[in-house]
């Protein structure tokens, strides 16, 4: 079967398909097809052996599970093969440049994987007596210390599980601070260019969200923002560097104005990589900022997570930060403060955000990364990240429209639009063309403030040679899009799959496998 897909173009068979059809297995040499575990495994096979269970009298309260669960089992050889074959259908940083704007897809050092797996960290229980986890608490404390040092803030909340969770932490701290002041300020201001998590978070915490316009050069319109400030405004959420890749020059001015109006400044720190070691957000009047350890501090993205989003807090907000937290005691030991102990030290905490102490596995990795780079290395990280992005911006602005190319140097990422492509060709086609060239596409259609956005973030872990090849490839694809090369419309041609039908997927969602699906698959 074949249908019209999301991007509204009719699929047609490409040259390669003839050949593909030619293999009996559907495999193409090392590009291997792989069935679902439900089609491979069965309920008798298992890849784990157990000693027989001693006979005992059941204490299950008569709630034995009698019906078949429907979980297929695979032997170990089948399992290793299944996931190895699946993995080969993925693109990843380890394969090449992964220029997803705003995502900071940098190299993930293998040392970090090794230290995170040390039994002393990976095999300890969150509720062990504290005297038995002093080393683990030390890791949290050390990382917290350096995050505060690098940002010039007052304190840090370590437990948030990702950036969005960190945003919530910051917004809750603001709300708690307002409550403490007995003020009800229902509005949060968010720039149009903000990441979706910003308005979503504010709304989630019960605020109403109002947009702040951007200036033609891609920065927050300070005048408009100042005009909107008032007793109903709890604060602003500003991303710096922003999602157009520009540094918010006037952030300090904005902060002062917001503070003067009785509000707080939340800074989205997802793009901290561009300034780490060179600029301290604390010096710009920020009250709260989350740090994506899975971006700036190189913990792997893992195909969608897990991440970690510690939030640094200003003097004004620190008292309201969440529990639990770790502190170094006068005797040199480390102490975990939970509900009970927090009482004395941290009475105004807004409470707990997650069951335990945060993403330990990310803490070890991020700390190893920070100590490996050191003060000189981290500064170099920011410089090389910015240098690489500007190199791309200037090398390609002749080929693709760079809407803010004139707004000064970019920071960690370069923004382009699809203006100037041939009739009927869009950002999507450029993205799919890059796939055939052996690259993961850049972030597309974000930020929303420009048409057909292409947001390119190379990161500092790319060599000049890698950038030059990417620039050449993107230029070639862009030119094909300008010339209206039809082959580009049906790209990708060489990937494990051609363009997928997202409309079909959403129209009648198939979210779990059902025996019946077999037929569809076979169709």
């Amino acid at each position, binding site marked *: 079967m074949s249908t019209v897909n999301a991007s509204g173009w009719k699929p047609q068979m490409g040259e390669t398909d003839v050949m593909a059809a030619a293999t009996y297995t559907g495999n193409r040499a090392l590009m291997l097809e792989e069935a679902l575990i439900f089609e491979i495994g069965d309920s008798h096979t298992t890849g784990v052996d157990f000693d027989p269970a001693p006979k005992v009298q059941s204490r299950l309260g008569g709630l034995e599970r009698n019906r078949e*669960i429907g979980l297929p*089992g695979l032997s170990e050889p089948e399992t290793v093969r299944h996931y190895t074959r699946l993995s080969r*259908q*993925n693109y990843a940083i380890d394969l090449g440049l992964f220029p997803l704007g705003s995502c900071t897809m940098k190299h993930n050092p293998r040392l970090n994987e090794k230290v995170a797996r040390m039994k002393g960290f990976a095999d300890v229980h969150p509720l062990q007596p504290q005297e038995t986890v002093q080393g683990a608490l030390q890791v949290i404390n050390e990382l917290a210390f350096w995050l505060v040092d690098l940002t010039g803030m007052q304190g840090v909340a370590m437990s948030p*599980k990702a950036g969005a969770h960190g945003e919530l932490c910051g917004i809750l701290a603001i709300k708690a601070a307002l409550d403490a002041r007995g003020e009800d300020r229902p509005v949060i201001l968010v720039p149009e260019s903000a990441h979706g998590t910003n308005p979503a978070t504010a709304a989630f915490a019960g605020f109403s969200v109002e947009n702040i316009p951007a200036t033609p050069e891609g920065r927050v319109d300070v005048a408009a923002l100042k005009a909107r400030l008032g007793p109903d405004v709890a604060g602003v959420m500003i991303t710096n560097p922003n999602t157009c890749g520009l540094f918010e020059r006037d952030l300090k001015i904005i902060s002062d104005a917001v503070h003067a109006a009785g509000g707080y400044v939340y800074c989205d720190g997802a793009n901290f990589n561009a300034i780490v070691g060179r600029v301290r957000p604390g010096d710009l009047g920020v009250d709260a900022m989350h740090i994506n350890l899975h971006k700036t501090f190189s913990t792997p993205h893992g195909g969608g997570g897990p991440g970690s989003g510690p939030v640094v807090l200003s003097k004004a907000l620190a008292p309201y930060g969440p529990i639990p937290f770790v502190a170094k005691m006068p005797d040199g030991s480390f102490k975990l403060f939970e509900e009970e102990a927090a009482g004395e030290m941290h009475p105004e905490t807004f409470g707990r955000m997650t069951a335990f102490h945060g993403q330990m596995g990310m803490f070890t990795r991020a700390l190893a990364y920070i*100590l490996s*780079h050191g003060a000189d290395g981290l500064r170099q990280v920011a410089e090389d990240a910015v240098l690489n992005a500007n190199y791309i911006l200037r090398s390609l602005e002749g080929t693709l429209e760079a809407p803010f190319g004139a707004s000064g140097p970019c920071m960690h990422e370069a923004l382009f639009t699809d203006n100037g492509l041939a009739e009927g060709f869009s950002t999507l086609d450029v993205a799919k063309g890059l796939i055939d060239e052996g690259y993961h596409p850049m972030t597309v259609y974000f930020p929303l403030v420009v048409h057909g956005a292409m947001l390119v973030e190379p990161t500092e872990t790319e060599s*000049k040679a890698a950038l030059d090849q990417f620039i050449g490839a993107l230029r070639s694809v862009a030119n094909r899009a300008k010339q209206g090369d039809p082959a580009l419309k049906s790209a990708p041609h060489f990937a*494990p*799959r051609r363009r997928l039908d997202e409309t079909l997927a959403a129209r009648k969602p198939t979210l779990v496998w059902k025996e019946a699906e077999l037929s569809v698959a076979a169709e």
Partner: protein
Amino acid sequence: MRYLPLTDTDRQAMLTTIGAASIDDLFIDVPEEARLKGPIAGLPMHASEMAVERHFSAMARKNMAAAHHPFFLGAGAYKHHVPASVDHLIQRGEFLTAYTPYQPEIAQGTLQMLFEFQTQVARLLGCDVANASMYDGSTACWEAIGMAGRVTKRSKAVISSGLHPHYVSVAKTMARFTGDTLDTASPEIDKTDTNRLLASIDDESSCVVVQYPDILGRIEDLSAIAEKAHEHGALLIAVVTEPVALGAIKAPGEMGADIVVGEGQSLGVGLQFGGPYVGLFACKEKFVRQMPGRLCGQTVDAEGKRGFVLTLSTREQHIRREKATSNICTNSGLCALAFSIHMSLLGERGLRDLAALNHAKAVQASERLTQIPGVTLVNDSFFNEFTLKLPVNARDVVHKLAAKKVLGGVSLGRLYPGEATLENGLLVAVTEVVSEEDIETFATALQKTLVEGVGA
């Protein structure tokens, strides 16, 4: 520096292309006064891999690792044996260093895995559909309460006293800001919370939240609660903190739960001192458009080949912004992979064997430990975790045991500080990793500790 490929020659050449005299020219938009002149203060300069590794080894040695000692902690995090192939596979660069599968043509590996994961989770929890993971069980629980509010347009959640106290804390934190009201209570040693719950459900209730097995390890049928909830138009949210249990006991979905959330850490993930873990989130099909988080769905490509994509994104923040069902973006993908691999290795048979082994060892341990004078068993029913009542404050006992190199469970005093009626309670988890010698060592150490007395 080993992670930075640019050479100084490269940097010079690139600056020339850019038309900048120096790197500082690229930071001109930073206000003068905010520019750090030199390397950040305090932090040492870069260090060799060897030096960093040694620093971590030293810190790691200060912790008592579960594998090296008789270990009986649970209360929401369980130690199970994870097959070596799981960690090998999740370290494949193509899984480890990939991003969220936004470009499906080159992310089928992650997408197919998520589709398999969603199916495994839905079947395990007894629901129609499941999402692609949440941060952990506690945030999944909160999201479920929020979702019940959206579905029922009500804001009162009835929370069982059997729900993990940290989960309750998380719910309270959120409720404080969303204005939802939570009807909560502390657990009682001698009876479960079912009657209070049945009594509290009314037409204002958006949902009832019940942990299964509960925080003390007790197992109760949820059907009655489901019925009562449904009568009043409320949803039943079941919380499972030990998914291995569902290899032995009925799934909450089978008993009428509308939303089932859980902590998936038991399978594939490990203890990790509390994170990263993986939140499981499943529900009835009819609620799918109110679900938080990512969903992977099946479709076809331009050649009609089966393939997978992220779908129903109109629920999500990156499309819906302030109207999204949740603000979650990065979730717990790699832990979901570990969970799914471990579950594929186990399969129906392995999971059932594993569950049977856990239960049998727990029963044996409960019998041995209750032979100790003054130690009694609180539970009528349990899976692999039960509560003991000691003659003394269990919290002190736990520290004494640790000094004897036995990690002897979680005291209720740690979970419910200040609750006098609970302070002698000790929560003991027994999984397949516990050997008979471990149980004997624990029993001996516990008896010794009780004899010595905890005052000392």
